[in-house]
C-alpha cells in the first residue's frame, strides 16, 4: 500500500479550521485565539524545519551528524524542563539536573533498544534512532519537569513541616520522604495512565501514524508496545535521577533545608 502524500494546499484547509477556531474564541471573548495562532505557526515552522533536517540526516546517515542532532535535542529538552518549573534551583542546577537525568535515561535506553532489540544496520540508522530518541526525550522531559516542579514547589510550601522533622532528628531523606514520593508519582502518572488506556481509550499517536503510513496493524502494535515500554523505562529512570539529585540539592552538607537555593516564583 502506498502512502497518500499530502499537498500543502490540503494542509492549508486544516489550517483554515484552526483559524476558524481562533476567530470563534475571539468573538466569544475567550482569549485563547492569539496563543493558539502563535502555537500553530510554531508547529508549522518547527516541523518544516525538522523535515528538512531529517531529509538531510537520512541522506547522510553518518554517526557524527546523528550524534550532533541528538545532543541538540537534549539541550533543547533541558531548557524546556527548566522553563516549566515554577521555582528553579539556582546556579544552573535546574538545567543541569534536568539535562543530566534525561541524558542518562533517554540516551541509555535508546541506545540499548537500538543495539539489542531492534538492531538496524548500522545501529545509529537515523530513520530508527532519531524518532525513537525524540519520543523518549519528549516523554522523559514531561516526567522530569513535572517531578522537579512538584518537588521544589511542595518543598517551598511545606518548609515548616520539613524543618520540624529535621528538628526532631530525622535525616534529610526522611524529612522530605513524603514529598519525594509525591514528586516521583506525579512524574510517572502520565506514563502509567497512557499504558493503562492504550488501545482502549486512545490509539497512541505513533501507532496511528504508522498505520496511516501503511504499516500492517500487527507490526504497528508491536512497535507501539516496544515504544511504550522504553518510554516508561526512560521516564522512570529519568524521574528517579531528577528527584534524587533535586532533593539532595535542597539540603546542604549539614542537612539543612536550603530554600535560598530556589528562585522566586516564575509564572
Amino acid at each position, binding site marked *: 500500500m502506498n502512502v497518500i502524500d499530502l499537498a500543502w494546499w490540503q494542509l492549508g484547509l486544516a489550517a483554515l479550521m484552526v483559524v476558524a477556531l481562533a476567530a470563534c474564541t475571539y468573538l466569544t471573548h475567550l482569549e485563547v485565539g492569539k496563543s493558539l495562532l502563535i502555537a500553530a505557526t510554531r508547529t508549522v515552522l518547527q516541523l518544516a524545519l525538522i523535515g528538512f533536517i531529517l531529509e538531510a540526516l537520512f541522506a547522510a546517515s553518518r554517526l557524527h551528524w546523528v550524534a550532533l542532532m541528538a545532543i541538540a535535542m537534549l539541550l533543547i529538552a533541558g531548557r524546556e524542563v527548566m522553563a516549566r518549573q515554577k521555582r528553579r534551583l539556582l546556579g544552573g542546577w535546574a538545567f543541569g539536573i534536568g539535562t543530566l537525568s534525561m541524558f542518562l535515561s533517554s540516551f541509555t535506553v535508546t541506545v540499548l533498544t537500538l543495539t539489542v532489540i531492534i538492531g538496524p544496520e548500522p545501529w545509529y540508522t537515523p530513520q530508527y534512532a532519531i524518532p525513537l530518541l525524540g519520543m523518549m526525550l519528549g516523554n522523559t522531559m514531561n516526567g522530569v519537569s513535572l517531578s522537579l516542579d512538584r518537588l521544589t514547589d511542595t518543598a517551598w510550601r511545606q518548609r*515548616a513541616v520539613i524543618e*520540624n*522533622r*529535621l*528538628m*526532631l*532528628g530525622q535525616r534529610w531523606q526522611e524529612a522530605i520522604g513524603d514529598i519525594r514520593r509525591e514528586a516521583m508519582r506525579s512524574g510517572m502518572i502520565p506514563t502509567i495512565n497512557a499504558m493503562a488506556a492504550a488501545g482502549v481509550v486512545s490509539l497512541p499517536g505513533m501507532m496511528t501514524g504508522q498505520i496511516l503510513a501503511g504499516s500492517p496493524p500487527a507490526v504497528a502494535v508491536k512497535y507501539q508496545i516496544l515504544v511504550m515500554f522504553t518510554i516508561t523505562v526512560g521516564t522512570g529512570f529519568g524521574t528517579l535521577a531528577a528527584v534524587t539529585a533535586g532533593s539532595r540539592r535542597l539540603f546542604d552538607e549539614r542537612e*539543612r*533545608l536550603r530554600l535560598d537555593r530556589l528562585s522566586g516564583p516564575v509564572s
Partner: protein
Amino acid sequence: MTTTDALRLDKVSIGHLEDVTLAVAPGEIVCLSGPSGSGKSRLLRAIADLEPHDGDIWLGDRAQSQLPGHEWRGLVMLVPAESQWWAPSVGEHARPISQEDLAALGFDRETLDWQVGRLSSGEKQRLALLRALSFSPCALLLDEPTANLDDTATQRCESWLLERARQLSLPVLWVAHDSRQIEHVANRHYRIEGSRLKEVR
C-alpha cells in the same frame, strides 16, 4: 537517659547577633528575651544547626561540626513556636510517651490516637513538648513554649519542664516574653540588646 553535658556557644554570629558566647549547665534553664525581630528564634535555629552561622557550638566535648546534622539535632532539640504535624495521628510522630508525662500535661493514652486535624493550637504546643522529650534529647531549645496556653496550662507546663530539666540534667535555653514566667523558671536571664546578649540581674 541522663547527661552531664553543658551546652556552650562560642562567638556565635547569626543575622545581626554577633559573638554570642554563653554556657548553659546541665539542669540549668537560661531564659532569653528581646523585642520581636531581635533574632531570638534565629539564634535557636543556629544552635540547632538549621541555619548557616559563624562560631562554634558544643555539647560537652562534642562540637556541632563534628556530628552529622541529624545526630546533632537529635541531641540538641529545638521545639519551635509553631509545631507541625504531618502524619494522620498524634502517636505516629513520637517515640512512646509515658502515662505519667501525658497526665502531667493533661492528656491520656487515647490522645496518641487523636487525629492531628482536630488538635487546637494549645494542644499542639503541649504535645510538641512531649514529642520532643520522647526522643530523649540531651539539650532543649524552647521557642515560647507556652505562647498559646491559658494560665493553668502554662503553669502546668512550666512545672513539668522544670522538673524534667532537673531530673534529666538537661541544659535548657528558653525564649520567653512574660516576666512572671522568666522569674519562675529561669536560673539566668539574658536580654537581646542590639547585636549583643545582656544578662539581666
